[in-house]
């Protein structure tokens, strides 16, 4: 277990390092942030001053060296745009994205598993078929369009929910959270649903496929023959056995939901990290781009780690030591 963890940690460091190099070269190739940020009225001397201030007059390898040196001291640089430490900037936006992503993933399990279970148990019924047809829509409709439709129906036409923004927030651990206030929850309902639609469909289809497959297994037949109640067969024997693929997918989807909530965030003007990263890419705010991607890599690696550990809990046959 220990060697396995150590090896994972080493791999993670390597991935982060490789990613920073790619970002440095990539941003450098796209263009010069100063050309975008500077006032169009600024003269050549002012332009030279900003370039020097940002350290962009240095050769790229030297800029990278300076960044690495700072990173080793826990300093990922200051945003070109906001003049605040990149990490603090991202940290300030993180609660908004985290609560949205977690709510969306919880919704995907809460809706996806029961619906999938039903569709798997009654595959030929009208409801079962409708659920499957609906899941195709959930897969294929573009998020931004669904988001706008939700706004048009629930905010503009019916007026039940606020159209955009984050609403009131409550404070917990010194951070602002929407789920602590009623107004915040009302603001969160539509973006969370919008973000979870794809995941609901995904979880639903996985569950259905798992159920269909498991129902044919000998141990299910045996359980039935033994005279166990249908409820026990479904909720213990079937459900437990299909949990492994679902856990993997939900875990990975949590990562990508956090990292790429950007479409939903911009449609609903949700002030999360996704909007920050897109704005930063548009103005080539390199410190923020690098810090953000480093954090996302770390999140993905941690989630994978948790998923691997969860496997051992769910399936006693899996042992981490053997992998190492």
């Amino acid at each position, binding site marked *: 277990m220990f060697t396995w963890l150590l090896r994972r940690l080493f791999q993670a460091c390597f991935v982060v390092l490789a990613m920073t190099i790619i970002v440095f070269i990539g941003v450098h190739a796209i263009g010069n942030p100063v050309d975008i940020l500077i006032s169009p009225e600024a003269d050549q001397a002012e332009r030279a001053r900003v370039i020097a201030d940002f350290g962009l007059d240095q050769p790229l390898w030297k800029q990278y060296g300076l960044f690495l040196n700072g990173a080793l001291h826990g300093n990922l640089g200051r945003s070109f745009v906001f*003049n605040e430490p990149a990490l603090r900037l991202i940290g*300030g936006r993180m609660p908004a994205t985290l609560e949205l992503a977690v709510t969306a993933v919880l919704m995907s399990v809460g809706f996806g598993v029961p619906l999938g279970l039903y569709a798997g148990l009654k595959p030929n019924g009208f409801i079962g078929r409708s659920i499957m047809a609906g899941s195709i829509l959930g897969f294929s409709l573009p998020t931004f369009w669904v988001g706008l439709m939700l706004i048009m129906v629930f905010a503009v036409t019916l007026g039940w929910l606020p159209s955009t*923004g984050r609403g009131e927030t409550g404070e917990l651990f010194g951070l602002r959270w929407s789920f602590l206030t009623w107004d915040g929850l009302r603001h969160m309902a539509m973006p969370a649903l919008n973000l979870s639609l794809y995941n609901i469909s995904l979880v639903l289809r996985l569950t259905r496929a798992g159920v269909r497959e498991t129902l044919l297994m000998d141990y299910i037949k045996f359980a039935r023959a033994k005279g166990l109640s249908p409820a026990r067969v479904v909720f213990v024997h079937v459900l437990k056995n299909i949990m492994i693929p679902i856990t993997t997918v939900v875990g990975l989807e949590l990562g990508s939901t956090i990292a790429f909530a950007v479409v939903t965030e911009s449609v609903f003007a949700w*002030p999360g990290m996704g909007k920050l990263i897109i*704005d930063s890419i548009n103005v080539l705010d390199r410190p923020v781009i690098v810090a953000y991607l480093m954090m996302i890599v770390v999140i993905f690696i941690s989630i994978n780690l948790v998923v691997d550990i969860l496997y051992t809990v769910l399936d006693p046959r899996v042992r981490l030591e053997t992998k190492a």
Partner: protein
Amino acid sequence: MVLGFRAFAWATAILAASTFAARAQSLTIASAAPVTSMDPHYHTLTPNISAHGHIYEKLIDLDAAGHMIPGLATSWTLRDEKTWEFKLRDAKFHDGTPFTAEDVAYSLSRVPTVKNSPASFQIYTRAIVATEIVDPHTILLKTAGPYPLVPADLIQIYMIPHKLGAEPATEDFNNGKNAIGTGPFRFVSYQPGNRIEMDRNDAYWGPKPHWTHVDYRMISNDAARTASLLAGDVGIVEFVPPADLAKLRGDARVALSEVVSNRSIYLWLDHSHTGTMPEITGPNGEVLEKNPLKDLRVRQALSLAINRAGIVERVMEGAALPTKQYLPPGNSNHVNDLLPDPFEPDRAKALLKDAGYPNGFRIVLHGPNDRYVNDAKIVQAVAQMWQRIGVQTTVDTIPWSSYATRAGKQEFAAFLVGWGVNSGEGTNPLRAQIATWNPERGLGTANRGRYSNPAVDTLLDKAMGTMDLAARDKIVLETMKLAMDDVPVIMLHLQKNIWATRKGLTYAARVDEETRATGVVETGK
């Protein structure tokens, strides 16, 4: 116990009623771009300047039409060629300290010391080499030589109290500690990328603002901004996208306010290559010895080929005005007899033939696709119009983050950009765009096509040395006419600034793109 509960219920009811009354005068603004800082001297960015105008004030302000009006200064006069005298009004900062000449000197000296500014306000304070406080309400600003633009530059500089001390940190403006101005609203909170909340400044020197509370929200997605207005979540939205105009015009829940802006959209042409320009080839792809764009007739032909009225009507949905100059009609530096080029493709073909290109040539036309209103569509429309006079045009549109750098390197033969004249003053585009590129003198800084015309340069120098306003305006008009008739750039249109308000509200549409709560008026239900 019963009594206690009743008292509590009454108290709640009264409290609820009073919050309702307060809410009734609260305004929510939806702005189109994020405000990156609350430090008024940090970044010369229009969204920042627009938001800061609620909290801080400048010595000289602009009215909705773009004319200078007194701000914190009641008057400004020229003492001698190098000295300006500013008289200051009685005003108080939000913390109660009176505004004096010392604060002016402090604010001007603080501007160049702001750390890590990506676009410093120094360019507006650099001409002032010394300040002299005569009395608390009089200050002298001195320049090294005759410099007529001191008032125009000071339109950009917000005043902050001198008691903030040496080098106040930008962060402390963002958290509100230093966000102290004299403006009609006081800072309550700032959440980057989300919202700014402000309360009315009851001690304001000017007319008392109608709104007791302003919620300044940042909604950069066009569709979401329109939806939030239709849903009634916000009172006013700025930068209404042209695609929504037709729908909003017919919607009884919404009122529109619009004005022709100081932002022009035009095509830069390459003047830097005298010989072969890599992006321009002959009609069959052969290398051309000369850059055709150096010939005035070719530039005129390309301009005459464009149906500006068509672009304005179809691509811009009416949200623009065809132009041949940088400033809109009504501005004192607008040349009245400089009319937009007509749409005359036959004359354009004849001019091309005269210039020695009877079969046209091939050219690449570049445009950004995420910067100006409908930028990529405009470029496509122009390309088709050029095609019709025999100029085979290839369109290339890319995101601004990559475009901005490449456009400044003289790689492009023809490319679309825009220019907003914040000060509303005519030498600004002439100095930045039309003047010969000259790093030593800070001229031609945005002259991306490297146009150079000695006659224009001489006239512009003359304008910059003329301190008398009327005399200078006359020279500026002459310079503008001379320059634009030479077609250094192909002017297309001036954008319209459009705001949409909920029914019962109107906005005094501003030429400078700023959205100010004080301009939003209730017209009755």
